[in-house]
């Protein structure tokens, strides 16, 4: 192309590339690129991810256990208290079935010794 030759002829006096690069730029480029946060490994291996999930679940379980125990302890105490303080006849009072009580005991992981202790505490 004639006009392309015209341009090349005009600029052929120079060394072809008027732009310069700072000393050592390309040598240090990889290091600087790898330091960018966006270049950190974004893929986590499956076992590693499962480990994170397991740790979180265990922490939640440990932290919520005292809350659960407190909740069921209060429920058992208030049930026991209302039974003992009742003036109406046994037949008129709502009766808690053994199954219900055993279920609550299971949730609270409360054994017979603890039940006896609670019941006798308010005598």
């Amino acid at each position, binding site marked *: *192309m004639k006009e392309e030759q015209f*341009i090349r002829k005009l*600029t052929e006096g120079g060394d072809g590339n*008027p*732009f*310069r*690069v700072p000393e050592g730029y390309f040598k240090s*480029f*990889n290091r600087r690129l790898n330091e960018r946060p*966006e270049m950190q490994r974004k893929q986590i291996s499956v076992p590693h991810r499962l480990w994170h999930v397991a740790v979180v679940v265990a922490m939640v379980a440990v932290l919520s256990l005292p809350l659960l125990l407190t909740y069921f302890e209060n429920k058992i105490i208030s049930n026991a208290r209302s039974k003992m303080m009742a003036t109406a006849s046994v037949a008129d009072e709502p009766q808690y079935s053994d199954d219900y009580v055993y279920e609550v005991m299971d949730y609270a992981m409360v054994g017979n010794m603890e039940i006896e202790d609670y019941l006798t505490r308010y005598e």
Partner: protein
Amino acid sequence: MDDCQLIIFLKDPKTREPAFNRLVDLYKERLYWQIRRMVLTHEDTDDVLQNTFIKAWQGLDAFRGEAQLSTWLFRIAANEALNFLERKRPAQSIDDEAGAVAEQLESDPYFDGDETELQLQQAIALLPERQRQVFLLKYYDEMPYEQMSRVLDTSVGALKASYHHAVKKIADFFRHHD
């Protein structure tokens, strides 16, 4: 190591990092110059070049290997350079833009060109950005039109016409500023 081998290593999480470092080593200089001729200053080029490789790193899973690695990287670099210029472009007239480019390059410690080279850069800066890319890839990199078509996602015919018009505009610029 050819493209096929490198792609295999890039796809494997165990070898991805060293393979990517190898990719950076292979292409950083060529991409640097492709970007530099578009954005002109070294600092801006460094930003765009890093963003190019970050995009490539983040897009590795989506890369299907249908295109060559070079074409894929040149395309990312071309888009990043265009996006950069879009964000940077101030509202000014064409004459102001030529003047701004001249001023920028004259004060740039990493620009060594003489008066003619300065005029050439001014003329190139006046081209629409897409046309500028075509001119730079053809004039400086002598990229074949077929490859350029894949990099810029434009037909060969449109690229040839674009280059022809770009060269004419630059030649006219020199004649008017002689």
